[in-house]
């Protein structure tokens, strides 16, 4: 029977296992009292310096020059490093495909995304470091940018790296079964084009690195809130040009969330370590939120065309995937893993034997991608489960019937998918049946019908998802051809480690290399090990800090791919079990009984037959410390046991590109009801049901916590969150007021249901559970909205404004006599457009003369200094532009063209400063008014980028109007006539009245 996991602390029956109980977390007391030890809470060595990073405002540009001289002279600044300086101390990060490209953690000669590091300032504190960064002058030569993955494929697209053919880093095709035959014979071919957006799970704690270099030992010591995988340690050692044993990488005891994202701190480990080496002092860097949003890491966006060969009854015979994966500006390790993580699971929960795949990986002028909760799953399932819904609509079937018709049969496990995944266990039909009944689908349908009867926009969506966990470290090599793989040697497995140690007083310490980021690993391990030793969780102390110089670890160590419960916790059980087996022999000899009669319970080791015949656990446990000679022969020691565990099922990809990409496969069935408000077009989740089978549940409260947390992030991905870029590569969502994380008001409470089908492949029978809702929920909500609105194409996030045309059709026209302004912009067009008119009491000739006079311009442009006349029609100047409290200095370059004296002139130019850059063009026409005055009419089009576009995009249009208004007001003032307020458009009239009338 499915049970809602209880959150309340279960009372523990003596003798019953701790595993499976929602015991209170050992982590909580410190975190609730302000005694957590996050990276920025831990003290540093005396003399530690602080870094700030100057970042590119441009999406794509050559660096012409970097002048750091003023920054180096600034108070408290110790050093400024640019790309060349870092390059001299390091080597390129390795790139995951075979191509002659380099990947540096800082721009070398060229910037390729907004936010790319350009220089590091090291100073006595962060404030001074940022002061220094403000003083660095960088000259850029802007290149055209490409942000769209399909546009990046075009032959005439700007090319980011000469080493990639076009912008394609990888292009592989795969064929499993006989897809051509299946498509030829099927009654229907149903296709869908999908765009999955960029988003990120954005932990509330940002990245942090403290690095030190010891020249006497040529060794680095780095503390970072890195989360793994520790395969990255090899990348770091190579980049820092030291042997692996000379890079000590440590993690702090607590980490403020990661969800994959903190894998992406690794390029900064190289940067900060290089800076520490350069200055000869420890250097600390804590990323700020603007840096994090613009340039930490993002999930991939993906363009997918997915087709299915379908029979009349909805049975799918074959799938044809065409995926174009956008990894941003650099292919950073472990990318293109996002694309291949799901390679064994491209048929989802369905029994589909024929499969064609084309996978292309492209680079674009956006932030490089990396790990993010769900990792490839959201992208794949959005396409697959949208297609299932479309199949139902196009064939007039019930979507749930189409799901049911295609499921892997319940007696089919373990089930080998067409592309090679071995699905360990499950009963999908049963899970759906329970979900439908216990989740109240019938009632939800009644709600929908009632709502629709009232004219409301209500829909129901479904998804069925297989959630992979415990990644095969070899899946990424599927990107290589079999020939290349043969050359590189096989890569596979998922080596987990755990150490259980006994101290001289017989108490138990557990260490794992799982690097938790808030999940509660310490609590669960205390349960697992307590059960083995017959102790209580409070008796077990768990240490999850990681230190590559001391701890047992492997490339697979870390906190990713939902590997804790299935792999790490199970390995801890094995390690404890090995000690307990030996202790049982010790106890058997002490209690004069045989090993089979020994039980660990209640803090004792005792005879099962005669429970009074017992010895305390600590006494048996500590014997190895105090009297090794008293141990029975062949025991060795009982002090410490480290187990390395890698499941044999995780083999390398074969010659036909079959890959068992993950060890475990949970199952999720979701359905939901949503309503789209007719006025606001906001999507409200009325009810959400999520049914999970994640194998054996170790801690019900934590499992539900993972589900709720993933669900909340998925609601964000579905409705609110997108890393938005303009067509010029400008980054548009640089603050938490632009990149919108859902709050308590936006996240409903999902109904969570469980079924437990243990995994036969893991020591505890458990599977991963943390990522599933990031895969299932976005598409479930999208399916429901598609149902509500009758949509074929659904684009996430479901920004209400995007639905206006769909729901309402054409907009009412403005009243007669008012021209329709074409303000609707296509996606990514960020041009600011405007026009206006100012009337001055001076003849056109006089206005004309002033427009062409640098001195007048200097007087007219607010805050204008140092006008330099390059030619009669070309000027350069420094200008100070202010909007409200925002004030910045810019270098401006202005050219006049299309001169038609004294009637019209085109003013084009650009400006660049610390807050960003802009460029634009305006046509000014002078029309005599008949009473000796002149009407100055202007139209302009401008684009603004850089910092101000990232953090103030909402305000740019208005800001442009204020600035341009200032210019004409000032011109009018200079001309000497009184501007005629009556004839001006609303804002400008008032601006002119103000500026013209009052100074």
């Amino acid at each position, binding site marked *: 029977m499915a049970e809602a996991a209880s959150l309340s602390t279960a009372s523990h029956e003596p003798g019953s296992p701790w595993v499976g109980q929602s015991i209170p977390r050992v982590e909580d*007391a410190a975190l*609730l009292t302000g005694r957590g030890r996050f990276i920025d809470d831990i003290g540093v060595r005396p003399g530690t310096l602080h870094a700030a990073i100057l970042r590119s405002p441009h999406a794509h540009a050559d660096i012409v020059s970097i002048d750091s001289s003023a920054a180096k002279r600034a108070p408290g600044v110790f050093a400024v490093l640019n790309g060349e300086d870092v390059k001299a101390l390091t080597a390129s990060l390795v790139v995951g495909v075979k191509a002659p490209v380099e990947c540096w953690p800082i721009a070398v000669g060229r910037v390729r995304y907004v936010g790319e590091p350009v220089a590091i300032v090291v100073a006595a504190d962060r404030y001074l470091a940022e002061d220094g960064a403000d003083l660095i002058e960088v000259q850029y030569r802007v290149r055209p940018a490409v942000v769209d993955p399909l546009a990046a494929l075009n032959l005439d697209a700007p090319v980011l790296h000469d080493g990639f053919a076009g912008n394609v880093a990888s292009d592989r095709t795969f064929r499993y079964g006989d897809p051509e035959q299946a498509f030829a014979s099927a009654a229907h071919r149903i296709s869908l084009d999908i765009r999955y957006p960029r988003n990120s799970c954005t932990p*509330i704690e940002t990245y942090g690195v403290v690095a030190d270099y010891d020249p006497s030992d040529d060794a680095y010591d780095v503390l970072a809130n890195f989360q793994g995988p520790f395969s990255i340690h090899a990348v770091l050692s190579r980049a820092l040009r030291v042997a692996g044993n000379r890079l000590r990488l440590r993690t702090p005891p607590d980490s*403020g*969330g990661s969800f994959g994202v903190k894998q992406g701190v690794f390029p900064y480990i190289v940067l900060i370590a290089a800076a520490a080496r350069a200055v000869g002092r420890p250097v600390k860097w804590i990323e700020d939120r603007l840096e994090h949003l613009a340039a930490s890491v993002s999930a991939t966006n993906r363009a997918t065309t997915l087709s299915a060969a379908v029979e009349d009854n909805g049975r799918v015979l074959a799938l044809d995937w065409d995926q174009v994966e956008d990894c941003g500006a650099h292919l950073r390790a472990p990318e293109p893993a996002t694309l291949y993580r799901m390679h064994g699971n491209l048929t989802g929960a369905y029994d589909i034997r024929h499969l064609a795949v084309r996978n292309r990986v492209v680079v674009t002028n956006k932030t490089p991608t990396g790990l993010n909760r769900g990792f490839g799953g959201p992208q794949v399932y959005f396409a697959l489960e949208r297609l299932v819904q479309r199949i139902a609509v196009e064939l007039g079937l019930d979507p749930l019937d189409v799901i049911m018709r295609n499921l892997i049969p319940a007696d089919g496990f373990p089930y080998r998918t067409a592309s090679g995944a071995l699905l360990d266990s499950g009963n999908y039909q049963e899970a759906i049946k329970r979900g439908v009944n216990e989740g109240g689908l019938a009632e939800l349908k009644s709600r929908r019908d009632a709502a629709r009867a009232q004219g409301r926009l209500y829909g129901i969506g479904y998804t069925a998802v297989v959630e992979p966990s415990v990644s095969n470290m070899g899946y990424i090599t599927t990107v290589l051809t079999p020939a290349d793989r043969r050359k590189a040697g096989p890569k596979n497995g998922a080596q987990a480690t755990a150490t259980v140690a006994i101290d001289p007083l017989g108490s138990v310490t557990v260490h794992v290399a799982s690097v938790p980021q808030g999940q509660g690993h310490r609590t669960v391990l205390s349960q697992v090990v307590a059960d083995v030793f017959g102790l209580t969780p409070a008796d077990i102390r768990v240490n999850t800090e990681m230190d590559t110089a001391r701890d047992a670890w492997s490339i697979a160590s870390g906190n990713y791919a939902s590997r804790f419960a299935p792999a790490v916790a199970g390995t801890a059980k094995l390690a404890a079990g090995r000690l307990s087996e030996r202790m049982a022999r010790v106890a058997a000899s002490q209690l004069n009984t045989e090993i089979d009669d020994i039980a660990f319970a209640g803090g004792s080791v005792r005879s099962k037959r005669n429970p009074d015949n017992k010895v305390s656990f600590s006494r048996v446990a500590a014997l190895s410390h105090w009297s090794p000679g008293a141990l029975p022969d062949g025991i060795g020691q009982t002090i410490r046991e480290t187990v390395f565990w890698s499941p044999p099922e995780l083999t390398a990809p074969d010659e036909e590109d079959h890959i068992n990409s993950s060890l475990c496969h949970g199952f999720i069935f979701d359905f939901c009801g949503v309503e789209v408000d007719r006025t606001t077009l906001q999507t409200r989740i009325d009810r959400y049901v999520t049914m999970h089978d994640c194998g054996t549940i170790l801690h019900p*409260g934590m499992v539900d916590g993972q589900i*709720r947390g993933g669900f*909340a992030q998925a609601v964000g991905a579905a409705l609110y969150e997108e890393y938005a870029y303009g067509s010029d590569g400008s980054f548009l969502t640089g603050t938490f007021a632009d990149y919108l994380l859902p709050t308590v008001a936006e996240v409903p*409470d999902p109904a969570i249901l469980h079924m437990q089908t243990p995994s036969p492949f893991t020591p505890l029978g458990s599977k991963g559970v943390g990522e599933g809702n990031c895969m299932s929920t976005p598409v479930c909500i999208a399916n429901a909205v598609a149902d509500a609105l009758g949509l074929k194409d659904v684009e996430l996030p479901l920004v209400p404004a995007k639905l206006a045309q769909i729901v309402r059709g054409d907009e009412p026209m403005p009243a007669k006599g008012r021209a329709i302004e074409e303000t609707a912009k296509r996606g990514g067009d960020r041009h600011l457009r405007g026009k206006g008119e100012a009337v001055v009491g001076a003849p056109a000739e006089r206005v004309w003369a002033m427009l062409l006079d640098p001195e007048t311009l200097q007087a007219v442009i607010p805050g204008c200094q140092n006008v330099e006349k390059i030619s009669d029609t070309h000027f350069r100047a420094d200008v100070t532009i202010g909007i409200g409290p925002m004030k910045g200095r810019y270098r401006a370059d202005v050219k006049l063209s299309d001169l038609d004296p004294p009637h019209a002139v085109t003013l084009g130019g650009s400006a660049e400063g610390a807050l960003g850059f802009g460029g634009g063009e305006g046509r000014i026409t002078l029309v005599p008014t008949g009473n000796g005055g002149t009407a100055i009419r202007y139209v302009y089009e401008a684009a603004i980028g850089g910092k101000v576009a990232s953090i103030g995009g909402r305000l740019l249009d208005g800001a442009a109007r204020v600035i341009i208004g200032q210019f004409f007001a000032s011109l009018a003032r200079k001309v000497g006539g009184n501007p005629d307020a009556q004839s001006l458009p609303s804002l400008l009239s008032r601006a002119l009245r103000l500026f013209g009338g009052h100074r």
Partner: protein
Amino acid sequence: MSRLQAGRRHSVRFSLNGKPCTGEAEPRLLLTDFLRHQLAATGTHVGCEHGVCGACTVSIDGKPARACLTLAVQIDGCELRTVESIAPSPDRLGILQSAFKRNHALQCGFCTAGILMSLDCFLRAHPRPDEESIRDLLCGHLCRCTGYTPIVRAAIEAAAELVDHGKEKTDA
């Protein structure tokens, strides 16, 4: 009038968690940095430094406030309380903290201090809040781990328990 010059440190006197406290701060030093790096009160966390995420929320004169939108020099003479103050003793949790623990209302714990301080201020001022007002208050906080439901549940439980006890803090 006092003019505190840029680039120099100036004395700031205030009450921190019920005890008089003196520190030195440049005018531009944020209260977050002042608390964490000068006064070693690292329980207050920094998540966004633009007032949205709520991780740095502290109590200033009894009202919840963003420490990242406050200068250290602005709190001269104020009563400041932080997460370090809300347990009745170092080895015991307060009612609100216990409710969080019981309800699994935290995972990574990074946003938790700010949420606790908002709720602590709120429950002192509003002893019998309804769920809607608790939710409205919590809108000012971002949590990436829990999905919020357990936080709301913990707050409701704590509010009820505080009324039952008829005092603000008690053993847990």
